């Protein structure tokens, strides 16, 4: 089936056994994102820590309702960013966005791809434009939450 190129085992596995799921404390910021087209939603918290003077991602916790692509993508996103500095995590976030917008024609940076970890499995999603928003939901929520968390840091 053509669609198996999108629904790789890795993605289905993250869907059935999502990593880092659940809402935990402490956290620096929380966001609630919705995809108005389909009603998929995610509540996501980011906990930042200090790593040698630089902010880093201590934890990403979330509660989400949605299709296998949105759930698996959120799961893989948490794996890709937890423990990284915010700077690195933002680069990874950008790489994933680029991969999604590549329409299956991506010739992306090998090194960037390596940083995506399991999330490279989503390359097939870019060939099904209707599902790109699903794949991006968790990543955009993380970006938003982290931006808010950084603002709070700056204010303290």
């Amino acid at each position: 089936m053509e669609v198996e190129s999108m629904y790789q085992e890795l993605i289905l596995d993250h869907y059935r056994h999502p990593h880092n799921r659940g809402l935990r404390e402490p956290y620096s910021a929380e966001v609630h994102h919705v995809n108005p087209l389909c009603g998929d939603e995610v509540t996501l918290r980011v906990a930042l820590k200090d790593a040698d003077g630089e902010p880093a991602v201590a934890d990403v916790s979330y509660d989400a309702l949605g299709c296998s692509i949105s759930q698996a993508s959120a799961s893989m996103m948490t794996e890709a960013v937890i423990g990284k500095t915010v700077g690195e995590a933002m680069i990874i976030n950008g790489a994933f966005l680029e991969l999604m917008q590549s329409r299956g024609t991506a010739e992306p940076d090998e090194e960037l791809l390596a940083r995506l970890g399991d999330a490279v499995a989503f390359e097939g999603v870019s060939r099904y434009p209707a599902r790109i928003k699903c794949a991006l939901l968790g990543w955009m929520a993380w970006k938003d939450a982290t931006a808010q968390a950084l603002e709070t840091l700056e204010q303290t």
Partner: protein
Amino acid sequence: MTTTRSAPRATATGPARGLDVADIRADFPILGRAVRGGRPLVYLDSGATSHKPRQVLDAERDFYTIRNSAAHRGAHLLGEEATDAYEGARVRVAAFIGADPGEVVFTKSATEALNLVAYAAGNAATAGPGEPGAAWLRLGPGDEVLVTEMEHHANLIPWQQLAQRTGATLRWFGVTPEGRLDLSGAGRLINDRTRIVAVTHQSNVTGTIPPVRQIADLAHDRGAVVVVDGAQSVPHRPVDVTSLGADFLAFSAHKMLGPTGIGVLWGRRELLEAMPPFLTGGSMIEVVRMEGSTFLPPPQRFEAGVPPAAQAAGLAAACAYLDALGMENVAAHEGTLTAHALEALGSIEGVRILGPLTTDDRGGAVSFTVDGVHPHDVGQLLDDLGIAVRADHHCAWPLHRALGAAASTRATFYVYNTHDEVEALANAVRQAQRFFRA
């Protein structure tokens, strides 16, 4: 000017005759195309938009190639022919719903038609003294607008907005777990403060057909005006405005084999006459001076801009096509497909159908959830097999919440669908369950 009510549509006598679906399918060029993996198209999304037969495509093309001009303008032959095409379409569409052509307004869509009534009411509420606007239009605090939880967003949000802007109160009928309107509070919800009641003629999610006539009678007893969303009814079964009981009816061409970009608002003459315009500009004016302008009577008052004559020609051809099939036969055909789908899907373990489970007062939209498989994923699997459905909240988010579903997968049926396609749908759902190990 005297107007005569157009001749009633011929109705079939005796039992509905089955449609010759193979014959019909041959009229639709798009049904011949292949989709994913070279598979044939199984199109079960007519509730979103319907396909077009050659006859409609030809009518629109013929307008552009033979008589293209701006209707109601131009001192030349083409202008006359374009005007005849446009006004002729109005007469044809009016006959399709048993209406007087003077009560048929062409809009962009059903959504625009519903907005038109809401904006007319809103504009009347802010009108100066001496400007048109009957009492029912000039809403303010203390007045009520009554809708339902079953509505498509097009027949919900304009009323929410109207209430917010005028200070009127929005109230609504709820939905029962079976997907019917909960009319138990009707005595309370339809009261002396009720000005407008807006209700669907057929749910685009559950297929539910509410008792519009009954609701309209209650509303009229209290002097309220009734607006009916016919987007999912007019294309699929006989609708006659004389027996409907409503004061306004909205529907779209593109859902009834016609082109995109044109819809219809039918409204009772005396009500239209009291309404200020929604969109203003050319075509709808009487006298224009810099200091102010006056407007034409309806329907022209509500048709600003160069008329969508090509689209009107397409819609007229769609009405002719459907009338040749006979709307009773169209409804009967869809009824058998719906019954088949309800049975075939309903018998799959883990599948929950939203709404009524029989075809009693229930039209051809079958929306369902599959345990453990999100509608998007169901839709994706079906797409892979060449089956086109819709998978989201179908622009009826409150209805989904009321029925305890975040989203659903929806199959809708029309004149070109077959029982084999219903079987294919059921088999595909089972395949989706296996693929996602649900």
